[in-house]
């Protein structure tokens, strides 16, 4: 084992890590917006809108993520939309995370008893006010663990973006391995970096959860 050779490539490792983080955070934020909007529309949208959202969810969740990235990177240019590798990966991962986020948020919303909505309506609140102030906070708490798990899968899934040379951590690892032929050392190091990122995010999410969801619940 010889890890010293890798030291020369620390810039590539740092850059790959930062690109992985950027891809993850962009896809998580965009996917969360898709999740909230999609779940709200699944509850209150017209039939065609609901059908469109359900189709999107089923297509994304039942096809390989790698093919989704390829479609956006290689096929969209045929229709006049050419995206660079990073942007293509960000769009594909956002759509991927969004499909799961809709289902997670939907499960959260359905976990709220109708009597809570009724109580909000009886106080004269608008539908939006009931959704925002009565339904959403406890719904998000109920599905927060599912969100954090899905976030972890998203972070690890960014490695697929290496197949379109998006420059993220796995791609950086492949590059270093091709130069050093130190497969074990390279993949051990990038594995350790992925592991450290996931553990750090878990700690951050746990802290956010403690600060945000402070109300006691019956166990």
């Amino acid at each position, binding site marked *: 084992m010889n890890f010293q050779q890798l030291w020369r490539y620390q810039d590539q490792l740092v850059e790959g890590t930062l690109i992985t983080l950027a891809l993850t955070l962009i896809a998580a934020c965009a996917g969360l917006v898709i999740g909230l909007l999609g779940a709200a529309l699944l509850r209150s949208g017209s039939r065609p809108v609901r059908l469109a959202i359900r189709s999107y969810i089923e297509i994304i969740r039942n096809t390989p993520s790698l093919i989704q990235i390829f479609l956006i990177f290689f096929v969209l240019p045929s229709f006049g939309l050419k995206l660079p590798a990073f942007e293509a990966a960000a769009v594909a991962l956002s759509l991927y995370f969004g499909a799961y986020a809709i289902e997670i948020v939907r499960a959260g919303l359905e976990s709220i008893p109708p009597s809570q909505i009724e109580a909000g309506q009886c106080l*004269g609140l608008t539908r939006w006010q009931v959704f925002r*102030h009565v339904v959403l906070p406890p719904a998000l708490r109920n599905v927060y663990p599912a969100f954090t798990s899905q976030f972890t899968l998203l972070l690890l899934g960014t490695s697929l973006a290496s197949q379109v040379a998006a420059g993220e951590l796995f791609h950086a690892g492949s590059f270093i391995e091709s130069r050093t032929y130190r497969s074990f050392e390279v993949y051990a190091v990038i594995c350790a970096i992925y592991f450290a990122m996931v553990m750090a995010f878990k700690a951050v999410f746990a802290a956010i959860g403690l600060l945000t969801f402070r109300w006691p619940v019956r166990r």
Partner: protein
Amino acid sequence: MALVEIRDVRKSFGQVEVLKGVSLDVAEGEIVTIIGRSGSGKSTLLRCINALETVNSGTITVEGRRVSAGMANLRQFRQRVGIVFQAFNLFPHLSVEKNITLAPLLTKKIGKSQARALAQDVLGRVGLSDKIDAWPEQLSGGQQQRVAIARCLAMAPHLMLFDEVTSALDPELVGEVLKVMEDMARQGMTMVLVTHEMGFARNVANKIVFMHQGKVWEEGPPEKLFAAPQTPELRSFINSVK
């Protein structure tokens, strides 16, 4: 004119007709208690008054305005007609103060300090001033129900509806809720209650309405109704709950 006028109201759920032509008047300041066996349509009638259910035929008028789920200014109407449920329905993620002030802050656009003062005032009226910063989960059932009543009072309603508000409480907690309702009655609040608390109905109500098979079977002042029921159904009901 009565505050609430109900005329020949019919309401079905699928094939089951729950209300079969109910008519009833509630005058301003009156305490009307609806009694009857489970399934007689009491709660459905109460929910129709607040437009939580839409009637199939007949009319309900509150303060001269026809009630329906599609009525103009439904939200403003509901701010004037408070309803308290059997299951309290407090919002678990909001403190007692925020449960009470959420609707006034959002719908009446009052300031935060004014909202806090309002919460203190209504909590004082239900005897829970010291619980303003508590979470609902930290309260007993009776306390939660009193907070639910305070939450309605914060909207300054003209009419209060109570749907079996003591049914989910342990027996030793029923009294504290009934006392709050008695205080409200003394202060002149117009109230329509569905209850199985016959002692409370007898002592506090101006009018008792006995519902049976989706109809108003008998109605009248409590002393008359309990002392001399006119129908075998009411006689049997009174005997069964003694």
